[in-house]
């Protein structure tokens, strides 16, 4: 019964987006992926939520700037366990073109565990969906 319930629960991964100083390319693509009819993540049971407290899968964009760092870390800590982290775009993964600037503190895996990387600048929505699908399979094992 317990395993069955967990299996059922895995079909409801709610998404939350954190912008850690991105150029908003990935954010726009995330909004597109999450909200519009063409990609409709709701059919995967996903829901885009407004509060970190409701999130299961965290999508992070941006190279982590100095000024946003504390806020991102605080926000990340607010997301209840179990959670899965997806780095969207090359910025959170390696800081991309912004690497080695005085105002950049990334990459993101220096601060908290990342599970899935979706490289691209920005990745296309289909690639993001692929990443989310992968994240769901990781999430299933964590419940």
């Amino acid at each position, binding site marked *: 019964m317990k395993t069955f319930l967990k299996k059922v629960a895995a079909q409801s991964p709610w998404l939350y*987006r*954190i*912008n850690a*100083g*991105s*150029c*908003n*390319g*990935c*954010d*726009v*693509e995330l*909004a*597109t992926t999450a*909200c*519009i*009819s*063409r990609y409709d993540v709701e059919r995967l049971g996903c829901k885009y939520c*407004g509060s970190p407290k409701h999130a299961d899968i965290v999508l992070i964009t*941006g*190279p982590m*700037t*100095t*000024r*946003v760092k504390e*806020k*991102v870390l605080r*926000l990340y800590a607010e997301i209840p366990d179990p959670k899965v982290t997806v780095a969207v775009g090359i910025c959170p993964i390696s800081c*991309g*073109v*912004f690497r*080695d*600037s*005085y*105002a*950049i503190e990334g990459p993101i895996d220096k601060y908290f565990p990342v599970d899935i990387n979706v490289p691209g*600048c*920005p990745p*296309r*929505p289909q690639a993001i969906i692929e990443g989310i699908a992968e994240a769901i399979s990781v999430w299933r094992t964590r419940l």
Partner: protein
Amino acid sequence: MSSYTIPVGPLHVALEEPMYFRVEAQGEMVVGLDITAGHVHRGIEALAMTRNFYQNITLTERLCSLCSNSHPSTYCMALENLASIRIPERAEYLRVIADEIKRVASNLFNCAILGHIIGFDSLFKHVMETREIMQDVKETIYGNRMDLAANCIGGVKYDLDEERSKYLWQQMERMKKHLDEIYALYCKNSFVRLRTEGVGVLSKEDALRFAVVGPVARGSGIDYDVRQKSPYAAYDRLDFEVQTENGGDVLCRAKVRLREAQQAVRLIQQCVTDMPAGPTCIDTPPEIPAGEAIAKSEAPRGELIYYLRTDGSDIPERLKWRVPSYMNWDALKSMLVGDKISDIALIVNSIDPCISCTER
């Protein structure tokens, strides 16, 4: 009534990007505003001074993904001005096409977010679906949905063959129909009008005082468009009108943006018809002498200005740019005070704030 402070942001769902306001409110009314900027400050100007001219094309494109074509093209224009490089005529038209495609997508995105903020989810989705046509065009012609990578020093990197020109033309025909419908919706729909009319008013005097640019200025009745005032690329040979509205509220700005999107579609079609054959890029590697130059363009959000200073090496001595949102953002102080808390996100969105551009 005593006032209280509410934080907006920095990571607010309604806003694409991190920005932080401390809004002072009395009841539901905004009485004061303090902006803390810099959450997306990545030190790009410093990075630009450590990278060579080629790398800076890609770097400037990553300033912001919504006006990602305006940056490299204006940067390349600054280099070309400095080195007195005349780009091939076909490249001039191709630059206009890339710029206008981005303008349509960017303006539609902003108007869609307006729908989202007023809780009109179906409208948001409807406009975003229409924008997908532009996204497909970008992906098909340039290979990416946001960053076109269309420019290089002395011209453009892409070309439109017969087949692609035809494809572009057909997609623009499709867009026309959708854009007309969307424009009518924004003008007539009572829910859109109830929430946006008379909200976040920026008077013409204030607009001049804050020196706002782009659709924000034109929404307040200032007739200024870089494409007409200081023409570049092929704009001196294209036929278009500057769009203005006099109300200065959220709805006027949205209307200006939508009309500019409609016009952009016509501009793209003009380019496809008028474009002469020929090379798309100069064929010798550019030589950049020491000196300084200015280049300006009309990005989707307004006037974009680049200042470039070189010392004869292949790394800029100083590269500085001022983006349209820079002044528009500061002008929020004038727009927000006196309005309702529920309209904060709406008014902020109405200047189409590009934080990543502004903070660099």
